[in-house]
């Protein structure tokens, strides 16, 4: 499968499908540089989201790199850097 790129809007949907939304967090707001911790997503939530990205887009994600992608921008960079 060809590598595709994903946008913030895709990531919002993937996060919600994989791990829901924390109460009091506006997932549709300015979240690009907000720490996942502050958005209510822990390491399991991100593992689940990464697995979903791989399933849907065919993009493999390295687990060690995932651990240091602590914001949506860093995760998008990781995914889209191929």
């Amino acid at each position, binding site marked *: 499968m060809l590598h595709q790129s994903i946008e913030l809007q895709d990531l919002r949907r993937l996060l919600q*499908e*994989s*791990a*829901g939304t924390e109460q009091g967090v506006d997932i549709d707001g300015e979240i690009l540089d907000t720490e996942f911790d502050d958005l209510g997503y822990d390491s*399991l939530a991100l593992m*689940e989201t990464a*697995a979903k990205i*791989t399933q849907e887009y065919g993009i493999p994600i390295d687990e060690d790199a995932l651990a240091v992608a602590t914001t949506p921008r860093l995760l998008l960079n990781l995914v889209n850097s191929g």
Partner: protein
Amino acid sequence: MTAAAPVVTGIGVVAPNGLGTSEYWAATCAGTSAIREVRRFDAAQYPSRLAGEVTDFEAADHLPSRLLPQTDHMTRLALTAADWALADAEVDRETLSPFDKGVITASSAGGFEFGQRELEKLWSQGSEYVSAYQSFAWFYAVNTGQISIRNELKGPSGVLVTDQAGGLDAIAQARRQLRRGSSLIVSGGVDGSICPWGWVAQLTSRRLSTSDDPATAYLPFDARAAGHVPAEGGAILIMEDAAAARERGAGESYGEIAGYAATFDPKPGSGREPTLRRAIEQALSDAEMDADEVDVVFADAAATPDLDQTEADAIAAVFGERAVPVTAPKTMVGRMYAGAAALDVAAALLAIRDGVIPPTTNVRPARRYPIEMVIGEPCRTPVRAAVVIARGHGGFNSVVVVRAVNRKEER
């Protein structure tokens, strides 16, 4: 002198015949049955096809979306029951230090419906399709863990796995931790594994009814008894050290956990007497009470002739033949394993509060059982103390004595 008995200050119920304590209690006193054909999966090809299911529960109405992808149905029920119990006790995150509050629940299986779905993905699609949440969502201790996280309860916590006896064993373990210095323990149990995987596991006990008639499928202490109907649900109880509850200004409690004992049966065929009678006697002794001070017994009500005989004989041996009212409101909903005894304790506390013994439904007691059952209609009578019996598959016997709080001492 033993330490003061812990008090129960909050109750949260999720039952097939009622969501929330007041709905459940009204339905139970009215004798409303909720045993029906299994709806959660197609059970037509299985030997047992009836269940007591919680059907009108919409998880998203009760829990944040963050918790939904990571929880089995029965964990969602448990989290909701815990929310209701804590609200009932007027406990929130600001009440006490997180380390003074723990969670000890009972479980018999774990999140099997969740687990089955993920295992199906494993063999049909591959390991990368299995949810990361499978790591804990199926697990016995998952309700304890999720209740702890959601409510910031960081005190002593754990899970008891002794089948149907677990609901009482969890309450006893909570009592131990309160005696060791905790102020509050969230206890009880919510259970259920009504999915093909859970169903075939339960079928191996050979104790499941194969009847298709909800009115005659689960008939403990009846000559027609031929096994039980499985169910889901249970109750979460807020247990507090009596002095700590006073200190935080807790409202009136439902009653106290006055006594407990557990025994284990001898090996089948050993010829030795079953130990349920001893469990009842020791629980009364632990409560420093005489048998004639007990106003009602909530029976385990296994609905197989040998187990019913053992239980009826034990009750008669301790209390006298037909000397104490015996009831089994679980005849309306089925047996919910680790949830059942916690729900019976809740019912016993509500019986004390309202002066009413909920009925056993559908049963025509067989004369060979030397007990007096409350049948069909609730019995209005003052209830000061109740005995709850629960037995787990494989020889577990547990007994709890609940008692009205002496108002003078409370002050």
